[in-house]
């Protein structure tokens, strides 16, 4: 399968189902790539897969695509591939790939089910930018006949918060869009903060849309619980020590990385929130404290 076909397929996936997580779309494309792959050896197959993952990362530079791709590759190869016939091995890998895909398609629902019980009746929730997982959680809470109000930050430079407000409005949840600068002002009014994540790192911290770190620091200062909701395929083997330590390929959009020379002039799209500021993480593996994330990662990757 050609590179451009792969990218086209990926883009098509996202177009058809706008609600799907980008990592899920990436994994679907990788599965398709695997099915159409023509290599003769397992090593060649793995190499092609790795190249495909890199190609997808270049298209959509989110952390989730990178982590999802690597986990997919590990999952399908984590089985005995001692069959003499290559096509048999491929079938085994494809089977496992389908299994993986099915599992992660259900993960958002699992997270939603876990988290909505933490939203009490009459709660005021603050969230940041547009996250489909947070939307699912709020959907579940609303379906449970809970009354709550939501404040969403505008989240410049792409005004993603306004999109989130529209979606929440459709669910008949009272929502207010606030400026990014209002976070400190409004923190005393809210009861809890829920954000999504683009990636969960080894230390238990999260990588998310820029402005999340600020929100976490404010909520810590006001002693408000700061919850993160993320699916398990977003766990990534990075360990940033501070904001500077996050690799550039995640901070900026893929096209900007290719065209712009001086990155100092560019606006980073994500930031890193250290684990000390996070109260709990809701994942499809359960409700975890930040220190438990490393445990889960060791289990996932070893």
């Amino acid at each position, binding site marked *: 399968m050609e590179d451009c076909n792969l990218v086209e397929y990926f883009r098509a996936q996202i177009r058809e189902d706008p609600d799907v997580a980008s990592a899920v779309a990436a994994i679907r494309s990788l599965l398709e790539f695997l099915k159409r792959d023509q290599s003769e050896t397992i090593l060649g197959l793995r190499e092609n897969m790795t190249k495909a993952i890199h190609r997808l990362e270049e298209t959509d530079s989110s952390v989730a695509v990178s982590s999802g791709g690597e986990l997919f590759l590990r999952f399908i190869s984590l089985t005995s591939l001692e069959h003499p016939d290559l096509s048999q091995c491929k079938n085994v890998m494809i089977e496992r790939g389908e299994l993986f895909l099915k599992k992660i398609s259900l993960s958002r629902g699992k997270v939603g089910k876990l988290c909505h019980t933490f939203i009490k009746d009459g709660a005021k929730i603050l969230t940041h930018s547009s996250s489909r997982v947070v939307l699912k959680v709020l959907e579940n809470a609303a379906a449970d006949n809970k009354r709550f109000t939501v404040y969403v930050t505008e989240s410049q430079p792409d005004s993603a918060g306004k999109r989130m407000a529209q979606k929440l409005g459709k669910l008949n949840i009272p929502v207010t869009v606030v400026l990014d600068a209002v976070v400190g002002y409004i923190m005393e009014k809210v009861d809890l903060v829920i954000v999504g994540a683009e990636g969960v790192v*080894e*230390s*238990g911290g999260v990588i998310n849309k820029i402005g999340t770190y600020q929100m976490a620091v404010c909520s810590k200062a006001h002693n408000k619980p700061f919850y993160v909701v993320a699916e398990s395929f977003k766990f990534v*083997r990075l*360990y940033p*020590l*501070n904001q*500077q*330590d996050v690799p550039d390929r995640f901070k900026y959009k893929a096209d900007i990385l290719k065209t712009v020379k001086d990155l100092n002039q560019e606006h980073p799209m994500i930031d890193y929130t250290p*684990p*000390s500021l996070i109260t709990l993480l809701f994942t499809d593996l359960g409700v975890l404290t930040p*220190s438990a994330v*490393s*445990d889960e990662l*060791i289990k996932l990757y*070893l």
Partner: protein
Amino acid sequence: MADSDGRQVDSINHSTEEDVKLQEVVQAKCEGKELTKEEKQRLRKEKKQHKKNKKDDRGPPEKEKEKEKASVLAPSKPATQSPAHKAAPVPVNASASESPVAAEKPAKSKAEQRAERRARQDTERASKQGKKEGGQQSASSKPKATPNELQPVKRLPEHIQVDDPAALKKLAKKLERQQVPLRSDYGYKVSLFSHLHQYSRKNPPTQQISIPATVIHPSIVRLGLQYSQGIIAGSNARSVALLHAFKQVIQDYSTPPNEELSRDLVNKLSPYISFLSQCRPLSASMGNAIKHIKKEISNIPSQCKEEEAKRRLQECIDSYINEKIILASEAISKYAIEKISDGDVILVYGCSSLVNHILCEAFEKQRKFRVIVVDSRPRLEGREALRRLVKKGIRCTYVLISALSYILPEVSKVFLGAHALLANGYVMSRVGTSQIALVAKAYNVPVLVCCETYKFCERVQTDSFVSNELDDPDDLIVTRNGKTHLENWQTVKSLGLLNLVYDVTPPDFVDLVITDLGMIPCTSVPVVLRVKNVDQ
């Protein structure tokens, strides 16, 4: 055998209860297994009661009789036999320190007693095997296991019980038995640390050994002297020196007739280890290395020829050093170099062989950084680190630890070595490390600890008082401008000099631990320990 103490009391008690026991055994044989089970339960209850009474007052030796009973009537599997023997010396010692029992009957010889006991146990075992095996064995082994588990679950190591006279007595007896000289404490100890040993460097225990040393191998004597004089210092260096000395010991070892190498060699090593811990308390890494060797030795199959066994053990020691120390440091360097970026200002404390290795590797890989070496009295180990780094060509700055808050605003990262990583995520390292981590946290500077996995230990500690090491207090005496102020510190009654060696750093101050398994947060140390235990 371990029962050489309290011999007299042991044998006296034995004769009184002998008849009782014989009767019981006969009873057990005749009647069904229910009786023995009941009996076991009764014995278990009595043991529990005994433990409670022992806590209130060192009671009458009837308990001891029951203990002996329990140890006899249990299935004499060798596994359960050793906990019994271990349990036996404890109450025996206890009663030895008080007035002895009804010393009416004449004492039989120890060997005869043991032979009789063994004969009885054999007959019992034979009778048991006649009956149903499975349920019987497990039922009878469980009551055996639980009473022994009810024994003091974790015995405190003696090196932190120096102010307890009973523990001291026990240690003295043990060392006497092993023919290892006992080192006496030196000088006034600060009251908070009176439970730790404090030795003087001027009196190494090697002076108290006669020449030629019969019990202790000369390479071990040399090693002990090197430890106590501080010639070999640093966790990795001490472990490697220990393993090389053990290699020499194994080389010179020859199995005595009628003995098995796997058992005898382990017994031979025990007095060496006691001697070394008298010279300087063992570190966590040395403890793990010794555990590994002992396991390897006891895994040698009995039919293995001596030369073959020795060769195997030498290989095993070599591979341990290679894997856990040398290759581990390569792996750690690889991960650590990812964290060093151009333009970094790195702070290091004291002299850690691992951190020095990392910095030298990073410099070779053309990373541009400069180093600030922080040092502290009385050891001034930072000078050695400074020497090594400057020789490589790395730009260095040298400060004492009192200037730490002055220099920290310039620093971008802190690299620390570790002596051991405890099971609750605390880092045990040279004294001063926790201070550096604390101030770095206050300035928001990331703190990275580099530690190989063989230094991970199962101990839990939350403060630096409970278990530590006191160095020679005379080290704090310094001569400036021809005047030595603390020269006569011993004459001043209210003055104590404290020279601590280690301290513990809580995991909140550490951002990242780099091990040969990868980069983990400090709270994941028990996970690694768990994974390692599963592997073994």
